């Protein structure tokens, strides 16, 4: 197209032309001028800031993305950093609160049992230079065409770096044989530190183990999502932390905290991505008709996986349509990204009991 720009030798453009015919470039879009100027100001401000005080780490200048996070695998549905304790859509009191609610006793009892069992597990040692390994089966619906199209179940391995400081490479992931680096969360120009958006084992151990304090922390720090009720956002935030190797005391506290979120109910028929049935815990996002379920093993109460599906018809799919599901297969601590647990110390197998 513009070979003159580089003076490169003539090329055979057969593939290029044919692709351009098969899949023409989408039309160009542009940001409103105001947005462009605002972004440019951010850049110039950043440059000026660095030049004035080159030794100080640059502040994070970007507005946090108003969309789910750019990093797979950290799973956090990070949205904006603002904190709002907005009211839930419905509910007896009209406003959300994280005090104990009496209408979810069965879920609370179930989570208490899960919590008790979890607390008794052994706490592995995880060094900062090691990686947490997770193997799972997962699938998700693709909505980009305007209709939900359920993708195939893929095998996914993840290695999460445990260094506490800001990292530009958070780890590695292998999905159906394709390996890729996990970059810092979008907007974290100077790297993503351990935290809700990148929960390392040590960071998780630093969370309060008192369920009320933990819940208060989560309500205060879960990124606000305009599209979601606060209670739902916190429930999903907890869900996003599950699924990896976790300090038993933290896990136990998270389950007890979840039991205190209004609207959390048992889901007796819950199954994970590979059909394992277990003890289910669910919460409905009533505004959008989306139910999120967590599934725990009936015998040892370990977290098996999760599932999200529509509970009412939407323009892109009918009620009952699966939006995403996951099944945890294996967790371990390994020394290098890419290393299979096999002979590594601290391997914990799941799904084999």
């Amino acid at each position: 197209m513009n070979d003159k720009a580089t003076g490169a030798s003539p090329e055979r453009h057969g593939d290029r032309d044919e692709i351009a015919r098969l899949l023409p470039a989408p039309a160009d879009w542009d940001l409103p001028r105001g947005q462009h100027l605002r972004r440019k100001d951010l850049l110039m401000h950043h440059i000026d800031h660095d030049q004035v005080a080159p030794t100080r780490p640059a502040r994070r200048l970007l507005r946090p993305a108003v969309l789910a996070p750019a990093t797979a695998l950290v799973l956090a549905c990070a949205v904006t950093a603002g904190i709002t304790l907005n009211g839930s859509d419905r509910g007896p009191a009209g406003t959300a609160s994280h005090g104990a609610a009496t209408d979810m006793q069965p879920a609370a009892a179930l989570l208490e049992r899960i919590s008790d069992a979890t607390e008794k597990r052994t706490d592995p040692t995880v060094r900062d230079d090691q990686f947490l390994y997770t193997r799972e089966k997962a699938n998700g619906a693709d909505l980009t065409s305007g209709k939900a199209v359920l993708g195939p179940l893929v095998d996914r391995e993840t290695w999460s770096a445990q260094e506490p400081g800001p990292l530009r490479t958070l780890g590695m992931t292998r999905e159906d044989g394709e390996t890729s680096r996990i970059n810092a969360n979008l907007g974290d120009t100077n790297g993503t530190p351990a935290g809700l958006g990148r929960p390392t084992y040590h960071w998780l151990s630093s969370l309060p183990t008192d369920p009320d304090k933990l819940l208060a922390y989560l309500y205060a720090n879960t990124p606000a999502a305009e599209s979601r009720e606060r209670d739902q956002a916190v429930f999903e935030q907890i869900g996003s932390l599950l699924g990896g190797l976790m300090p038993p005391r933290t896990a136990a506290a998270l389950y007890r905290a979840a039991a205190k979120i209004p609207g959390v109910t048992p889901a007796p028929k819950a199954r994970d991505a590979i059909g394992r049935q277990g003890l289910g815990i669910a919460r409905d996002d009533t505004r959008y008709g989306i139910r999120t379920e967590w599934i725990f093993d009936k015998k040892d109460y370990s977290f098996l996986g999760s599932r999200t599906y529509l509970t009412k018809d939407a323009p892109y799919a009918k009620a009952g349509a699966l939006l995403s599901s996951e099944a945890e297969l294996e967790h371990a601590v390994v020394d290098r990204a890419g290393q299979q647990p096999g002979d590594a110390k601290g391997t914990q197998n799941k799904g084999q009991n």
Partner: protein
Amino acid sequence: MRDSENDVRRRVREGDREAFAQLYDEFARAVYNHGLRLTGDWSTAEEIMSDTFLTAWRTHERVQEDGGSLLPWLLGIATHKADNARRGARRRQLFLARQPQPRVEEDFAPRTVGRIDDARYLRAVQAALSRLRRQEREVLALCVWSGLDYQQTAEALGIAVGTVRSRLSRARRKLAQLAAEEREPPTARGEMTSAAAIAALPVREELT
């Protein structure tokens, strides 16, 4: 042309403020559209664009003194960021599921209708791209849509020119196959590939 490009390179490498302002004015739109084509999401594209220039600033010392336009460098950075964003798509589906659905029947101004078609096509393209491997998608977006030549594409991705060729060739074969599948009568997979069908057909004519 080449001299002035190398002059910009030198100034960018030195961390010249005005050179970055100029770089932004010249290429922000190209970077934005590259991010948009790879992710299909406007606000993600905006973040990618903004983040790309901040990363460019942070890594300006690594720019080579000579080598022509800096667009391949910027698009290379943006490609990495788009990959990141795309891999977050699993969670993003839940976000998308909660977005108000656009009402197509609203507002019949001809310009708006054109944009709705553009948006629909952009979504269809995402579905077709999802049938390619990441490496193929990236080469396609850089070399076919952003107009980089093979050498510049190789430079943007830090790979050999021969690799660009082979990836492009694989992408072509897969897309041709998708288009062929679509011409067959609907099967159980019809739903899966309908988006690819839109992408494979000469939609361009409808859009203009």
